[in-house]
């Protein structure tokens, strides 16, 4: 099997490497990609959208429809993880030992395999594989997280002028919450941002994007043509494009942040939403 795989891979790679002979040279400023569509973006982006970061302008305006579905992909991935993994009813017959925490006192009870679970709702089941973290880790991350979040917001808001935008900012915001879940425990993170919040935010983020597009439709222009929003923003059409991009970037940021957090919640606790890693 391995030899067959290696042989076919080498053959395939050989053909592809042979194919590179017909490519334009690396970095050639006269190659077709550099000379056909993209010069329009470089030369006109500032004039047409008033966004100096051309990547953001193309991402959220010229090819905004791609980006809408890219956000939809992230949303469906998060939804898929929830759909596949989330456990709604705890299986009481599972053979391994169980740990329960008494909420008012914090005492942890161990129930041997086959034992009866405490019935009072003062107890909550906790994850037997979880090990509490060191205090240094806990304290340091608590100090760092606000700055990470601030940076995430900056990245979303400053995507017009520097590298960054909704995706990167959303991922940074999401990873700050993941860091919180890693350093404290998952249950505390869920206490901060629950499952309902992540699900609804995730959908709402994509909805902001698609809704902004649909609003343009209602204003009589084509889908996602932010210039039509200029009466709403009270600015001229070009500024309206810039502001429209900001709106959709915020939507993307919201959706990506909640999607990342939500995927992590389900994956790290196998859908049980207990202590996690």
């Amino acid at each position, binding site marked *: *099997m391995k030899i067959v795989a290696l042989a076919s*891979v080498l053959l395939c790679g050989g053909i592809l490497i042979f194919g590179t002979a017909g490519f334009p040279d*690396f970095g050639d400023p006269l*190659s077709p990609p550099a000379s056909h569509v*993209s010069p329009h973006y470089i030369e006109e982006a500032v004039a047409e959208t008033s966004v*100096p970061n051309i*990547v953001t302008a193309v991402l959220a305006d010229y090819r905004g429809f791609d980006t809408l579905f890219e956000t939809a992909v992230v949303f469906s991935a998060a939804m*898929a993880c929830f759909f596949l993994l989330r456990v709604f009813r705890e299986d009481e017959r599972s053979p391994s030992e169980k740990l329960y925490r008494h909420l008012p006192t914090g005492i942890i009870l161990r129930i041997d395999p086959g034992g009866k679970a405490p019935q009072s709702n003062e107890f909550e089941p906790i994850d037997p594989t979880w090990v509490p973290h060191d205090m240094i880790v806990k304290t340091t991350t608590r100090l760092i997280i606000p700055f990470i979040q601030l940076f995430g917001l900056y990245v979303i808001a400053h995507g017009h002028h520097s590298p960054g935008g909704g995706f990167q900012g959303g991922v940074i915001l999401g990873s700050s919450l993941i860091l919180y879940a890693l350093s404290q425990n998952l249950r505390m993170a869920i206490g901060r941002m629950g499952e309902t919040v992540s699900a609804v935010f995730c959908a709402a983020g994509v909805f902001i994007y698609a809704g902004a597009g649909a609003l343009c439709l209602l204003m009589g222009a084509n889908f996602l043509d932010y210039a039509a929003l200029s009466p709403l923003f009270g600015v001229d059409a070009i500024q309206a494009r810039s502001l429209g991009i900001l709106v959709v970037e915020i939507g993307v940021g919201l959706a990506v942040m909640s999607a990342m957090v939500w995927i992590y919640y389900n994956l790290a606790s196998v859908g049980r939403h207990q202590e996690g890693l």
Partner: protein
Amino acid sequence: MNEWIAFLAGKFNYWGFIVLMMIGIYAIIAKKNLIKKIIGMNIFQTAIILFYVSTAAKRDAGIPIITHGHGMSGHSARAVDYINPLPHVLMLTAIVVSVATLGVALTLAVKVYRQYGSLEEDEIADSIRARAGGDQ
């Protein structure tokens, strides 16, 4: 010698992407561990992203952010001064798609592990066969 180096400089990025892609495909075909296969899948996707980013490169050009900002409509930017932004845009999308696929793939791998207690393809096949035998 010099033209050989020029040829190499003109193509090596494309070769690199092919090598990475083949590593990825090899892992998907030949490795039996499901997580290894998923890693292979991701390497495969990043290789294609590398290819697109290579198509964007332009000699003696800067990053695609117009430096003089807005409000200066007097100077219009010249295309040769900035790297082609379009492949970058496409690849932002592709990266996000790849992390989404990764999430779903890992989710299914975890599900498979909870079902069969193993991530090795041959061991899973054995236990499927054993269960099918038990049915009859």
